[in-house]
């Protein structure tokens, strides 16, 4: 194994000179940042600043115009084949006709399962005990968000990319997101969270990554 001369730990996620352009128009960048294990970084920016686009680029859904993304020191193309990234987008990826538990079982089948947790336990820890057998169609928008958060607890991804996780959530839900992020960071995971700045973290001050629309 190669050690860097100053024994820097390898960042979980690193972006260098990352630029994304749509139809030759630069959406964001160039940006550089490093995300270490145990860190939660808040991506801040106005509407249209490219927060969602940044998360999609980092997850590999969109291809960057320039720059490189490294996951644990390796180029991102490998990330698709690893189990390291979990993306929670605007769309939760839940089926209304299936129950909360069935939706989570499908997510496990697709993404794998973290040790020591089950769908029922995960639903309990997002405050949805007793909703295991309720079709997701009958849940409120906030409850659906909680089911989507339960998915993050189940899949063994070290890096969470959360796009507006606070949207639709009540005060308790916002605290829940913060608690889940804290626990995830303490387990050695890392998270990149977008927010248009309406909510503050309750515990500690996270590092902020400002994103401005390219001129």
């Amino acid at each position, binding site marked *: 194994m190669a050690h860097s001369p100053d024994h820097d730990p390898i960042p979980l996620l690193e972006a260098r000179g990352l630029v994304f352009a749509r139809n030759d128009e630069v959406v964001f960048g160039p940006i550089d940042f490093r995300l270490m294990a145990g860190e939660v970084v808040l991506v801040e920016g106005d509407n249209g600043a490219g927060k969602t686009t940044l998360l999609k680029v980092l*997850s*590999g*859904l*969109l*291809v960057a115009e320039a720059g490189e993304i490294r996951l644990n020191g390796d180029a991102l193309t490998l990330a*698709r*084949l*690893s*189990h390291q*990234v979990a*993306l929670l*987008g*605007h*769309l*939760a*990826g*839940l*089926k*209304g*006709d*299936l129950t909360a538990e*069935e939706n989570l*079982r*499908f*997510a*496990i*089948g*697709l*993404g*794998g*399962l*973290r*040790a020591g947790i089950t769908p029922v336990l995960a639903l309990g820890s997002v405050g949805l005990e007793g909703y295991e057998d309720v079709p997701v169609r009958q849940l409120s928008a906030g409850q659906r968000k909680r089911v989507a958060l339960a998915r993050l607890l189940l899949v*063994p991804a070290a890096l969470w990319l959360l796009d507006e996780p606070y949207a639709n959530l009540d005060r308790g839900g916002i605290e829940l997101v913060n608690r889940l992020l804290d626990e995830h960071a303490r387990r050695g995971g890392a998270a990149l969270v977008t927010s248009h700045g309406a909510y503050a973290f309750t515990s500690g001050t996270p590092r902020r990554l400002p994103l401005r629309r390219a001129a």
Partner: protein
Amino acid sequence: MRYGTAASACFALLRRDLLLSWRRRGDALNPVLFALIVVTLFPLALGPEPNQLARIAAGVILVAVLIAGLLALDTLFRGDYEDGTLEQLVLSPHPLPLLLASKILVHWLITAVPLVLAAPLLAAMLYLPADVLPVLIAALALATPLLSLLGAVCVALTVGMRRSGMLLALLVLPLYVPVLIFAAGACDAAQAGLPFVAPLLWLGAALALALVLAPLACAAALRISIT
């Protein structure tokens, strides 16, 4: 930690899609009812002359099944695209072509197999000679998975667009033409008392090719649509 294999991911997807179809099992009848109505229109328009109907029966049934399949095609990725599941599939660590092949398999089971099972009824309505029926069913059994696979590639290309129905038909129908020609050719030959195996073998060969290539093309098309 348990990461799961590609096989378990495909199994989870098969299970979920079958479960979803079961929750909406009424929808599975729609293609059959559509084909039934289309087939009913022909005696109404052309007159109930058995000889005349018997001559066109196989062709009418094949076209009815083809169009019923075309109408059902849009549902293949639509739901998953709209609720974000498709993003999760693309991001999943498992090979996307395999996952899509599982989706196409379920779609074929739900939309096309009922049509193949309804073929004897449709054939009876149009006085298709009894000895041609097995050939028609064999042709349908080979042609419908081929249609689903070819159609899936076009659906993957158009899934990001709103109201893509007409565009989808324009993309898909030219691809369906050779399938229709070989399937109808087998039925015609059987009806004329000629050897009918060769067109069926052509369909089988095309199906084998599509089974391998269509999921790959579908995955590539889907990545384009999503971005």
